[in-house]
């Protein structure tokens, strides 16, 4: 019971208090109730359009993602082929990649001065780049699909593979065939998985921030981006706060619906369905098409990023990387970009330790008992609150007594821990709950108790969950963008913040440095990701 206390205090001080301050800023900006901000919001058609765009782009992204992921899920659930496990694991890589890195990667591939345009201009002798996707809705949607394709693929494919094949066989013996088999048997069986995946993708895209901010333009503003603009460029804090509250409410509703659906998508660990090698030409074609989609969508941009970071005028160069150590006069940065790597590493390790400590304590508190019932939804709240809202809440609430941390560097690890905490808990809790009660009982009968019981029996059994949670926290911190943009001090920026600033500056060197820094960040995240996959392969937590 006592183990729930640190998490409770942490959430009260660094989540509930800032969010309540947001409410106060929105509804009572001058210290007394003033609903004019909220009223203006309801009256203005601009903000209805804003909400409309946010929903529409999320819905479109979801549809596109499902359209690509569903056929691939079929292929992955049914067919066996060399390297399938590796490919499925690699496909999850985007999930841990920071938005700034992905934005840089897509600009390196299909941006106006990207690899593809360069090649086309070279071969077709064009003066102008033929592909003009920067600052269009299309590129936002493409990047959203990049992020969510593998999430949907994994959710649907694993659910599909866990379904008993005899259901479909029964449908066939009863005469279902072709489209009728899909319509009457397969899709209804998959319904909870498809709905769950769709909702998750929708939630991710609904709060999309970095992608829209970097690759879009002012007329493409999601709620999240608008909160940031109103707060930082226009200094309209009451309005930004009101938008935050609206977004939080909508998100919490979506999360509750998602939790309801997720309960139906319980995937058995042992999959009864046997995948086989594709035989008929149509099956092989389906497999080939699926692999082609994965490669072009997932790996081409990342390859382009690496190529662009290491080439200059057609030849190999390390100039961009070398430039990371210098800080020329007139730069918008206070310090050489490379120091940001050090900052980010320190923040990430602090986040990892704090997240692990609080997350493990929370997992023990949640494991059983009455506490779990009211701590569970409380812990879900930060998940429903976007990073931008958190960062915004921090600068409003934590810059004056009782908690004056505005100029303190601890703000960043604290914010990152809030974002990472649900991931840590979701990694540790299943491992903890999976320990059969007979094991600690057996150890006690054999003479173990207290510390030795925990160290010799429980700790080794949850070690994998702890590793996964720790690496998740580390990765989340390395890539966190929305909250850091608000609270990072000018002299101690994080890597994503520096990449964002460099991308926003003119000049090939700035751009090249952004790419170089992105490659470094991608490398760190990929390394962390490999660690997660290796520890998770024996089944510690999933989404």
């Amino acid at each position: 019971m006592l183990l729930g206390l640190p998490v409770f205090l942490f959430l009260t001080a660094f989540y509930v208090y800032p969010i309540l301050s947001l409410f106060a800023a929105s509804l009572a900006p001058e210290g007394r109730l003033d609903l004019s901000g909220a009223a203006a919001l309801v009256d203005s058609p601009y903000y209805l359009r804003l909400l409309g765009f946010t929903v529409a782009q999320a819905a479109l992204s979801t549809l596109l993602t499902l359209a690509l992921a569903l056929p691939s899920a079929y292929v992955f659930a049914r067919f066996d082929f060399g390297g399938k496990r590796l490919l499925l694991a690699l496909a999850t890589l985007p999930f841990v990649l920071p938005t700034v890195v992905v934005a840089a990667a897509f600009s390196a591939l299909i941006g106006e001065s990207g690899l593809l345009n360069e090649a086309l201009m070279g071969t077709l002798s064009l003066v102008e780049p033929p592909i003009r996707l920067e600052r269009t809705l299309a590129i936002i949607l493409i990047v959203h699909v990049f992020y969510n394709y593998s999430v949907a693929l994994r959710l649907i494919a694993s659910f599909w593979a866990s379904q008993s094949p005899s259901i479909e066989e029964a449908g066939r013996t009863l005469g279902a065939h072709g489209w009728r088999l899909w319509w009457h048997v397969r899709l209804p069986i998959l319904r909870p998985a498809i709905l769950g995946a769709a909702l998750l993708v929708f939630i991710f895209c609904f709060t999309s921030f970095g992608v829209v901010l970097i690759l879009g333009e002012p007329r493409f503003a999601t709620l999240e981006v608008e909160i940031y603009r109103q707060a930082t460029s226009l200094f309209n804090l009451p309005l930004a706060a009101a938008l935050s509250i609206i977004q939080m409410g909508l998100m919490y509703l979506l999360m509750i619906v998602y939790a309801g659906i997720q309960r139906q998508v319980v995937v058995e660990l042992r999959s009864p369905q046997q995948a086989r090698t594709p035989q008929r030409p149509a099956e092989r074609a389906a497999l080939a098409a699926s692999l082609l989609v994965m490669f072009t969508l997932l790996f081409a941009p990342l390859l382009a990023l690496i190529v662009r970071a290491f080439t200059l005028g057609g030849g190999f160069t390390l100039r961009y990387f070398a430039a990371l150590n210098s800080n020329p006069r007139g730069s918008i940065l206070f310090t050489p970009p490379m120091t940001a790597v050090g900052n980010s590493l320190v923040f990430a390790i602090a986040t990892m330790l704090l997240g692990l400590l609080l997350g493990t304590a929370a997992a023990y508190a949640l494991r059983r008992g009455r506490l779990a019932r009211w701590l569970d939804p409380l812990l879900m709240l930060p998940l429903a609150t976007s990073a931008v809202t958190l960062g915004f809440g921090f600068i409003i609430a934590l810059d004056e007594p009782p908690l004056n941390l505005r100029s303190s560097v601890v703000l960043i690890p604290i914010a990152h821990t809030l974002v990472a905490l649900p991931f840590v808990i979701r990694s540790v809790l299943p491992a903890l709950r999976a320990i059969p009660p007979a094991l600690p009982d057996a150890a006690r009968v054999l003479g173990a108790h207290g510390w030795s019981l925990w160290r010799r029996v429980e700790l080794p059994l949850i070690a994998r969950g702890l590793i996964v949670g720790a690496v998740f926290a580390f990765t989340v911190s390395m890539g966190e963008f929305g909250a850091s943009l608000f609270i990072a001090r000018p002299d101690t920026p994080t890597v994503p913040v520096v990449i964002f600033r460099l991308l926003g500056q003119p000049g090939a060197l700035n751009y090249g440095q952004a790419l170089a820094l992105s490659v470094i960040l991608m490398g760190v995240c990929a390394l962390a990701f490999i660690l997660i996959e290796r520890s998770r392969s024996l089944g510690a937590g999933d989404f």
Partner: protein
Amino acid sequence: MQAQTEEVAYLQVRGITKRFGGRAVLSGIDLAVDSGEIICLLGPSGCGKTTLLRVIAGLEAPEEGGVFLSGASVADQPVHQRGFGLMFQDHALFPHLSIADNITFGLKMRGASAEEQRARVVELLELIDLAGYERRDPATLSGGEKQRVALARSLAPSPSLLMLDEPLGALDGILRQRLMADLRRIIKQIGLTAIYVTHDRQEAFATADRIAVMNAGRIEQVAAPQDLYRRPATAFAAQFIGLRNVFPVISMRDGRAATIAGEFAVQTIPDAILIHPGGIRLSEATRQCGQVLPGKIGDMTFAGSTYQVQVTLTSGVSLWLELSSYSAPPPQVGAEVSIEIEPDAVIPMGTPQ
């Protein structure tokens, strides 16, 4: 009281009551186990037998009553200090430890030397016939092997009492039969006092010196297996060990208990009358004298070594009896027969203590 008379039993359970959420799972359990004895707690799931085991082990604290070892209460010893062995239902082998580390876990906890640990592993693996398994991973073992390793692990610290909770529950068929015999042999060989929990009467018969039949949180009868089978004391005990022909007593008249199967002379006032299937004989249909009752074969089940035969008497009452199947021709359903009931086979069933 009784305990203070001559000799005190090795393990005594006195007046144990345990409630979960207001519901009594154990109500006033008394049990005495002699040194070197294997006692079996036999009963259906939910009767409280596992809870009783956990109370004795110290994993659960009783609301009332106590556990005494050689006359001394163990109430102030927490589970890890009692020095009892407990074998869990699904083995509960530590998945992160090798077979050898599983077996030495208890020795390590009491600070045994590495030397001693190594020697004990070799000795125990030999005893359970798994020599050379030291470095294996529990996940690679078969069900029977896991069961034996679990036994070795609970034996390793030389417990003063061994408890086994449905140790063969997860196993099937022939393996089960062999392991029953193995378990009894190994426990007897070491001379351990053991409490063995099971819901399977065959297992109880095969392993126990005495059986305690449990029902709804109470012990209904404690008896040697043969005595339990021959003379069960309560209707529940009779039915649970597979005896049919239990007839509730409807009324008492002049020292005779009336049931739908007829009236029987009794000494006490019983709840029910058992007509033991073993004491009913099928006789020639034509002979008609004294104890012989005419009837018709109503149903028949082939059960391997026996036929279970249901005879419907002319009074309409049905009785089950057993026929050896080895030499006799199969009884024909519908055939006219007569049955003969031995006087000994009529057993009055009492109320649980």
